[in-house]
């Protein structure tokens, strides 16, 4: 259940990251000529001040200025891998809950590897985010660290359960 819950959240987080990297481009920023378009009626509709509207553009500028040239494409690959791994972990956890016997043991073994893969993915994302400027690092590092420990806990928990099941099958109670 926990694996499904965190899988869903990780899927949503990475889908948004993929979208973010697709939208925040230098071309789109250049088209604006670094000037925020803040019409009074739009400000009222959104319920924001003129300064907030101007800062929205600054936020895009921060994302573009703080990231190295390779960051966008690497993030796209990493977040797409994150989406795939999250969906796989949800599918395996559902299969694990739905079935019993050898099928569920097999799902559990694969799930341990997928969760381990997510720990590695979090680490790579963390290292990639370390290469950006301080403004982007402030946005990325803490959530990535949190995800790293969540996936690590899940992977170790799943590994322990898998090991206990294997031990019980190898040495059934009352046999010796």
């Amino acid at each position, binding site marked *: 259940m*926990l694996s499904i819950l965190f899988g869903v959240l990780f899927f949503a987080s990475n889908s948004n990251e993929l979208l973010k990297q697709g939208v925040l481009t230098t071309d789109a920023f250049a088209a604006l000529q670094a000037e*925020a378009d803040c019409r009074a009626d739009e400000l009222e509709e959104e319920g924001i001040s003129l300064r907030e*509207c101007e800062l929205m553009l600054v936020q895009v500028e921060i994302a573009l200025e703080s990231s190295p040239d390779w960051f966008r494409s690497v993030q796209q690959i990493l977040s797409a891998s994150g989406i795939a791994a999250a969906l796989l972990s949800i599918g395996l956890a559902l299969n694990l809950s739905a079935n019993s016997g050898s099928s569920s043991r097999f799902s559990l073994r694969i799930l341990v590897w997928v969760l381990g893969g997510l720990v590695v993915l979090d680490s790579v994302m963390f290292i990639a985010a370390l290469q950006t400027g301080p403004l982007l690092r402030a946005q990325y590092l803490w959530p990535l660290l949190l995800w790293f420990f969540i996936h690590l806990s899940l992977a170790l928990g799943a590994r322990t359960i898998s090991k206990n099941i294997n031990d019980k099958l190898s040495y059934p109670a009352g046999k010796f």
Partner: protein
Amino acid sequence: MIENTNSELASEPLALSRAIRFCHWLSVLAVFYLLISSWWMLSLPLPSENSTFRVLPFQLHKNVGITLFLLLLAMLGSFILRWIKENARTDPLQQLTAKIGHGSMYLVLLFCCLTGYLSSSFSGWGTELWWLLNLPQWAQESDELNAFFSDLHLWSCWLLILLIAVHIGAALHHSFNSDGVTDSMLRSSNKD
């Protein structure tokens, strides 16, 4: 013998069909994507002739939202049938809380999707469903109605988050208690 059968029946979860379970998990993914992406996309620069940052996120948001609405309608019939069957199986308090919880979640989800669509309809921006089908513009642009439905959309989504938290909390509670309640969303029915 009869007692045994009854107790087995009572503890057996009301398993749902594979299609309904698939729709449920697909809608879960859609809801969390919509929530998380909406917080981010509203921080993007306001739209104008030159500012295109919001175009893709908003189109995607509307497409996922409309698809979610259709998914929910498809699932609604199955859940009503399930509630009727549940009357004979679970204790009255659990029945009542489950009905209130699920019923309000469905209502708020549908309301959230509907107000989002209405807000968009009065905004003057067109909707192209998955970039394949241009949905007809049936409403005239109206700032007042757009703002009204936008507010309803926003507040119903905050309420939805609260209901989701309760729903997940209840699911985790039943899962940790291993009482078989969450199994209906995880296990296959005999029909599968």
